[in-house]
């Protein structure tokens, strides 16, 4: 049996009013990849913050035993000195500094703080970049890199701190599948070189691909640790641990939804980049959606899906948009978002915190924002009516909150997504474009979102669902478009389609930039 590198014993951490961690135990052996899974809010990030010293020694109960000694970390620097390095979910690089400057930020090379040795900085940086397989000069500005490469820079930065235990928090959440795969393979390669890693992820397929052991956390407690060597690990098996019951069907069935006439038809739609008007982002795309139909658009990140959706939604993205748009057979031009909303189109953004919700405002105010006209007359808001509307949608979507006066920023991801959906459902659209509607929310909430989608089409509305999760696209759509490099490269009925057939469309066309 390999040596135990890290042991977290009976960790308990309380915040005012909440017990975030309750007697959590975690054992990581040297040279293994250990995955930490659990629903949102289960306590994974809190546990890692305890480990890395973000919550200093004394603010929690229990012991951290690392390399055979009990550790008392007071700040991140303390844990980093021991070789425990955490890479956070949000990339923390500064865009207008070079790769090298970023890598040694706070850890500068040179004799003193007043004399940085740039040759050493860039020389060292290049060495680490080579280790992670990133073919870029360390003098390149970080803003020139895509998210995949930025993630590699983060890892190189961790290596530069002489990491022995690498903690990756949702490392692939903003990467496309190809980059994700490359990243996971890199972690496996590190393992063969003796590195120990802890990976936190929502993507169970990745977890079962990369991890040797999986520890499941639910509601602040450790539920179980699955060992690949002794048990068969399937995604369903992991989900069972996470939600405490077996989800037999991850996608609810739709019963007798009648698919009607064509509602929205877009022909030869071409969109150019707003800043580089010579770059085509969406290239000659045609699509149609019928009443009562869920149309999936599958594509990797950067395929132009969001850009397509936003350009349809009142030209909220892009320049030089050409092509025709027909609503119920009528050619219509939607010049502004207001017009799009008036013509009963809704676009539910993939970035609910950044583009969707006003986090400092209560649920009530967010719910009515896209359709304030409905609850006001002559510019004056009827606050009674607004309250009723908010409560109605809260109940309908089963948003978990003590009151609609609660600020949206205080809700969990799944509940925020419900508020966002409520906002657009209240705008009473016929066509809803849902962009990554289940990104970053837990399994239970996902199921509820799927049910809402089913209710919407049952009312005769049309849903366009953009997603980069293949099982979701297959499980929820009636028809699927595959998008790659700004083009639609395939269209298929969901029935009988498999992950392999969809991927083959993308592979055939190569990966467009």
């Amino acid at each position, binding site marked *: 049996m390999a040596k135990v590198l890290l042991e977290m014993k009976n960790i308990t951490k309380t915040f005012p009013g909440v017990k975030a961690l309750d007697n959590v135990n975690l054992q990581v052996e040297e040279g293994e990849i250990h995955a930490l899974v659990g629903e949102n809010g289960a306590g994974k990030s809190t546990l890692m913050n305890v480990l890395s010293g973000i919550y200093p020694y004394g603010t929690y109960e229990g012991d951290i035993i690392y390399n055979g000694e009990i550790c008392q970390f007071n700040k991140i620097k303390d844990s980093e000195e021991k070789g425990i390095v955490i890479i956070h979910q949000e990339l923390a690089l500064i865009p207008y500094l070079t790769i090298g400057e970023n890598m040694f930020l706070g850890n500068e090379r040179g004799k003193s703080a007043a004399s940085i040795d740039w040759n050493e900085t860039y020389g060292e940086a290049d060495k680490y970049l080579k280790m992670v397989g990133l073919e870029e000069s360390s003098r390149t500005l970080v803003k020139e890199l895509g998210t995949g490469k930025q993630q590699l820079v983060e890892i190189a930065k961790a290596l530069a701190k002489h990491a022995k235990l690498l903690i990756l928090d949702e490392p692939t959440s903003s990467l496309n599948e190809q980059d994700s795969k490359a990243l996971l393979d890199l972690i496996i390669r590190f393992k063969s070189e003796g590195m120990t890693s802890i990976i936190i992820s929502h993507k169970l397929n990745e977890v079962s691909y990369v991890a040797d052991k999986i520890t499941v956390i639910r509601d602040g407690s450790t539920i179980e640790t699955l060992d690949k060597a002794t048990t068969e690990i399937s995604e369903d098996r992991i989900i069972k641990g996470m939600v405490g019951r077996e989800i037999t069907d991850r996608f609810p069935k739709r019963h007798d939804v009648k698919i009607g006439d064509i509602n929205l038809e877009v022909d030869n739609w071409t969109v150019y980049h707003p800043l580089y008007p010579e770059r085509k982002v969406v290239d000659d795309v045609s699509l149609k959606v019928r009443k009562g139909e869920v149309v999936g658009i599958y594509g990797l990140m950067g395929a132009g899906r969001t850009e397509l959706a936003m350009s349809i939604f009142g030209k*909220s993205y892009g320049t030089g948009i050409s092509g025709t748009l027909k609503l119920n057979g009528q050619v219509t031009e939607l010049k502004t978002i207001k017009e799009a909303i008036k013509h009963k189109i809704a676009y539910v953004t993939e970035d609910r915190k*950044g583009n969707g919700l006003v986090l400092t*405002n209560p649920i009530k105010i967010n719910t009515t*924002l896209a359709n*304030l006209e409905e609850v006001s007359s002559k510019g*004056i*808001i009827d606050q009674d009516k607004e309250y009723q509307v908010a409560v109605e949608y809260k109940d309908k979507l089963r948003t978990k909150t003590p*009151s609609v006066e609660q600020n949206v920023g205080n809700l969990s991801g799944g509940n925020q997504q419900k508020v966002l959906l409520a906002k657009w459902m209240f705008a009473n659209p016929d066509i809803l474009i849902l962009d990554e509607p289940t990104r970053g929310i837990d399994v239970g909430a996902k199921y509820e979102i799927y049910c809402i989608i089913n209710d919407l089409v049952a009312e005769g509305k049309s849903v366009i669902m953009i997603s980069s999760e293949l099982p979701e696209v297959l499980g929820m759509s009636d028809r699927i478009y595959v998008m790659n490099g700004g083009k639609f490269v395939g269209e298929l009925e969901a029935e009988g389609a498999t992950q392999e057939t969809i991927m083959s469309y993308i592979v055939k066309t190569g990966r467009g930039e």
Partner: protein
Amino acid sequence: MSAALRKYTMPIALVLVLLFFSWRTNGAIILPQNINNLLSQNAYVFVLAVGMLLCILTGGNIDLAVGSVVCFAGAIGATILDKNVNFWVAVLVMLIIGTLVGVWQGFWIAYVNVPPFIATLAGMYAFRGLSNVVLQGLAVSIDNKDFLNLFGGGADCYVPDILHGANLNMLCMAVGVIGVVIYVISFIVSRANIKKRGYETKPLLGELIKLVIISAVALWVTYKLASYKGIPTSLIWILLVVFIFGYITSKTRIGRYLYAVGGNKKAAQLSGVNVKNVYFFAYVCMGLMSGLAGILTIARATQSQPTFGTGYEMDAIGACFIGGASAYGGIGTVPGAIVGALLMGVINQGMSIMGMNANWQKVVKGAVLLVAIIFDVVSKKEKK
């Protein structure tokens, strides 16, 4: 309880500061005359703070030109009044000038994307210069009695007591009492309405305490004013501004958009809100308020000078932040800004009565602003 404390920190601080100064000045600060002065001297701060709040709400944007615009509008107004035309002409011109400045700055900020800091910094220089040009570097005095009486300047700038009280100004008392009665009745009606429709109600005790305190303070101020010379005319303008913009920010669509744009610009945009128009609206209102503040300022001083309005923008900004507005936008209320302005006013006046050196007064003001913001930041952090 701690949540309530956090919410009402500034009103509580205001009371504590007032108590402190009434102890240090042997009650001088709460003499009727001083309460009267507190309101009329700071009339411009109240008006400007409300305008500034709108800009700050849209995303922490400020207007640095306010002081210069006050001076510029005042300079033109005084020059017109000097020509012995009907004073309403001057009033109208000053309001229009303020608004036009708002349109000018708002245009660059909203539609051309000039950063507000720069656009208004430019205005700060330009309108200060123009004021000097208009006044040719001299003071212009104002002797139009009607104008002064109506906008809080000169000796008779009080609403005449048509009820002819003996020692007390009965009109003032009547207005105050009626105001409080209306307030209490509307509270009961809205409470009953909420109950009837089965909405969630805020805890009755807390609401009652708030009702009692606000009513008591209103009656107390009424009594103080009545014991002096009655309702200062400048107070009418302050109340008008506070009620109109209090209503706009809390009950109207455009008010809602101010908060939405400041809270999350992109989300507002994708919800069909025309963000540019919202910025424009805020700066036009700010301009209008600058015009009004210009009127109040020259009336109070019974003259116009090229140095008037210096530093007014900072008083307004300070009042908003002390009153709980967020420096990032999206958070803040009109009553909050008024409390902030009052707090600054009380501190100013208290220190003046105590005979404190004017330089040290500035130091104290700076410290108060910093403490208010630190408190705000720290209390928010704890909440997390």
